[in-house]
């Protein structure tokens, strides 16, 4: 029920996106929301052609995924409310990312998709593998987010604007650095080699999540980023080689991974890595035709890959496994699922008459139109990647539905809510080919927005016997042969080396953090105090170079010297010699009296008087409050005591240094006469200290009284609560 209700918001935004796409109103809808005006931080959204196309994918497939999830989880599953909420939150973040027209908006929603996808991948939170996969996905994509932030900061600084719309081309070293950072971010999000290691692990997520995040939405965010920032960064030296490099490696490595695994969901995940690589290659190449092909591929891939994920999820639920080596006889037992998979797989392999075919044709033609090394590299990526795509598609379909020696797998009843969305998407792959004109009108404006030269291109329903078509035929033949051979003689499942490396790295960081925390956050108050004291010592060191010996004299009067010795002596007695608490209290009292003496000698009778009163009360309080305690202080270890002694003496030295330095650098002469005149004339009093306290610092004095009142209340509460407990016990 929750999941069905949750399908409503994406349905609404699908309708809105269709309205924007098919309506011919001139200006794109936009919205500005000021966030932090002083920092020029704002949320800027604009639904232009590319954004509308992506909205259609995000929301349209979103609706189907919610319907599908309803069937996937069944009526009794727990946690569907949490699932629906998180998936909707993700959907919202994705829409925000797609609509963003300011680099900051883009970044905020980019991170939001990382976090929500972490929650979705880790949905089965009792499963340790799912938690590990979620952590890996978060660390890699959030790490990419940091690269993105750095890249966007440089870009916004160089371009002089934060609006993606107004951004002109940026060049130079700064542009190159920004381009590299942005491409790394895109590679982490779109699972490009070597950052792809999170995507296969993310298959631990429930299948609706994979069908949504790992086909149409989140993994497309990186591709979208390359498309959005291509106009600004495409002219740097770094953009093309790095982008094509990421894409080329991923196109091949992903496809090879897809050929080796036997878990159908993993095959699809690795296939996604490969397909995304192809899109990145085309977008980084940046010619009109290549961008046009890439945008077509985004659309076609979302449709067929979501359908395939859904079919695999259905097989998983109904047959209890999704391992192609364990499944048998599903072709006749699940005819509808088989048809959906064959149609969508054929679209993925680029077989006519399906949407995937036209997109692949466009990609091949784009490669043929290039010159020199670029044509070679892009052509190699497109053709080689396509051959391998056909191969793993054939192997997947044969493995799921093909002939097998094993007895047929038992399957549960069909769940209409699961079958319907995938069937609709398969029909979409066919209809996309039939109504190619409509698809053209969706794709072309989006491609033109990235690269104006894409204006002249369109998807061909039937290209005739062209070079590209012949290449296509060769691709299908070669790919099918390879797929058949690999199906007959499996390559062996690889162990997840990359994921292992990431996990070991993370565990290493965590254990180092635990070690450092264990040493630094020791848990012992005396150690903390000692560390702070040592910091004081270090902080005082610079003062040593700033002392003028002539500024220091022995004493103001001999009495001051005597009293200073008495003060320090009494303090030392208080701490070291007096081992009883009562003795310590009396020691403290004598220190106080001696300090009052110092005040008198200094010419501060008010202070002396106050100090005497205060000291008396403290000694009385000490005796009354703590008189019934055990008499002796506990003894400490000798080593620790020695360390404390050294630290204390050093702190004493540091304080002396700081004082001497302050005496060496007087900031002026006190305006004693002015103060006296002002006190008598304006304050109306002869005691300067009193006038300052009452006239100048009246509010401070009031605050001081409040502090005393609060302290008194606290003391009362602390003593009274103890008393009442005792009475209760008695």
């Amino acid at each position, binding site marked *: 029920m929750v999941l069905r209700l949750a399908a409503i918001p994406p349905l609404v935004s699908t309708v809105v996106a269709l309205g924007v796409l098919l309506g011919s109103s001139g200006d794109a809808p936009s919205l500005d929301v000021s966030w932090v005006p002083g920092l020029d931080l704002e949320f800027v959204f604009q639904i232009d052609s590319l954004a509308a196309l992506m909205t259609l994918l995000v929301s349209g497939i979103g609706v189907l995924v919610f319907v599908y999830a309803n069937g996937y989880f069944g009526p009794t599953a727990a946690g569907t409310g949490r699932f629906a909420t998180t998936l909707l939150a993700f959907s919202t973040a994705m829409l925000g990312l797609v609509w963003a027209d300011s680099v900051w908006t883009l970044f905020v929603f980019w991170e939001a998709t990382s976090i929500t996808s972490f929650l979705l991948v880790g949905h089965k939170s009792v499963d340790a593998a799912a938690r590990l996969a979620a952590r890996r996905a978060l660390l890699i994509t959030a790490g990419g987010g940091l690269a993105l932030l750095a890249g966007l900061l440089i870009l916004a600084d160089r371009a002089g604007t934060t609006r993606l719309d107004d951004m002109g081309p940026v060049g130079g070293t700064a542009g190159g650095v920004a381009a590299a950072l942005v491409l790394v971010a895109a590679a982490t999000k779109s699972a490009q080699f070597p950052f792809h290691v999170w995507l296969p692990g993310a298959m631990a997520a429930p299948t609706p999540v994979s069908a949504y995040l790992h086909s149409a939405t989140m993994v497309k965010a990186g591709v979208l980023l390359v498309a959005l920032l291509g106009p600004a960064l495409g002219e740097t030296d770094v953009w093309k080689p790095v982008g094509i490099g990421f894409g080329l490696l991923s196109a091949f490595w992903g496809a090879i991974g897809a050929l080796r695994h036997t878990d159908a969901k993993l095959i699809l995940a690795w296939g996604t890595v490969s397909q995304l690589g192809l899109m990145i290659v085309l977008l980084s190449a940046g010619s009109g035709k290549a961008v046009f092909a890439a945008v077509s591929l985004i659309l076609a891939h979302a449709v067929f890959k979501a359908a395939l994920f859904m079919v695999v999820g259905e097989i998983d639920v109904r047959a209890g496994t999704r391992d192609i080596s364990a499944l048998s006889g599903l072709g006749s037992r699940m005819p509808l699922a088989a048809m959906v998979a064959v149609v969508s797989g054929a679209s993925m392999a680029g077989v006519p008459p399906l949407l995937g075919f036209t997109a692949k044709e466009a990609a091949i033609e784009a490669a043929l139109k290039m010159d020199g090394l670029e044509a070679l590299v892009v052509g190699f990526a497109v053709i080689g990647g396509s051959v391998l795509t056909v191969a793993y598609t054939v192997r997947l379909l044969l493995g799921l539905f093909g002939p097998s020696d094993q007895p047929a797998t038992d399957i549960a009843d069909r769940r209409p809510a699961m079958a319907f969305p995938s069937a609709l998407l398969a029909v979409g792959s066919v209809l996309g080919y039939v109504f190619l004109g409509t698809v053209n009108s969706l794709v072309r404006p989006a491609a033109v927005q990235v690269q104006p030269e894409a204006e002249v291109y369109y998807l061909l329903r039937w290209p005739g016997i062209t070079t590209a078509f012949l290449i296509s035929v060769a691709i299908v033949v070669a790919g099918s042969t390879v797929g058949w051979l690999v199906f007959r003689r499996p390559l062996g499942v690889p162990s997840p080396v990359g994921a292992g490396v990431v996990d070991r790295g993370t565990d290493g960081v965590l254990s180092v953090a635990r070690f450092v925390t264990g040493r630094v956050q*020791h848990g012992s108050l005396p150690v903390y105090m000692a560390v702070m004291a040592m910091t004081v010592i270090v902080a005082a060191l610079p003062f040593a170079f700033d002392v003028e010996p002539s500024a220091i*004299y022995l004493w103001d009067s001999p009495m001051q010297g005597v009293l200073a010795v008495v003060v320090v002596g009494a*303090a030392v007695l*208080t*701490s070291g010699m007096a081992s009883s608490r009562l003795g310590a209290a009396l020691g403290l009292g004598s*220190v106080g009296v001696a300090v009052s003496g110092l005040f008198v000698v200094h010419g501060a009778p008010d202070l002396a008087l106050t100090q005497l009163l205060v000291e008396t*009360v403290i000694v009385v309080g000490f005796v009354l409050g703590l008189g019934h305690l055990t008499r002796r202080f506990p003894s400490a270890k000798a080593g620790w005591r020695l360390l404390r002694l050294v630290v204390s003496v050093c702190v004493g030295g540091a304080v002396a240094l700081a*004082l001497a330095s302050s005496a060496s650098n007087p900031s002026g002469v006190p305006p004693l006469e002015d103060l006296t005149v002002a006190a008598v004339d304006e304050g109306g009093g002869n005691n300067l200290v009193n006038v300052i306290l009452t006239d100048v610092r009246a509010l401070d004095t009031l605050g001081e009284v409040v502090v005393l009142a609060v302290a008194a209340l606290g003391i009362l509460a602390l003593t009274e609560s103890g008393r009442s407990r005792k009475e209760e016990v008695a």
Partner: protein
Amino acid sequence: MSGSLIFAIAGLSAVGIYMITGRSLSRIVLGFALLGHASVLALLASGGPAGDPPLADRTTATEVANPVPQALALTAIVISFGLTLFLLALARRQQELTGDDLVEDDVEDRRIASQETP
């Protein structure tokens, strides 16, 4: 600045630090009180040399001690008085609850510190 005052302040600080790095709460209170004395004296010393009490009708303006630090120090004395008594009450409460007034280690922190690497 008077060397005697510097000596007194440095000595009070050293003894104060020694006491607050101990484990007994009542000793920590004593240490705080000593550090309070040290800071009041430092405030006074930084205001200039000793002089006559700053009373306009009894002493000449050029020979009095700087009254501004005195006014500030007066507040400091009173605040440290309140703090000391409050800490005493805390120590007493601790003694009532645990039978002693020792500052214990944070158990959770110790657990993290002693945890072996996985």
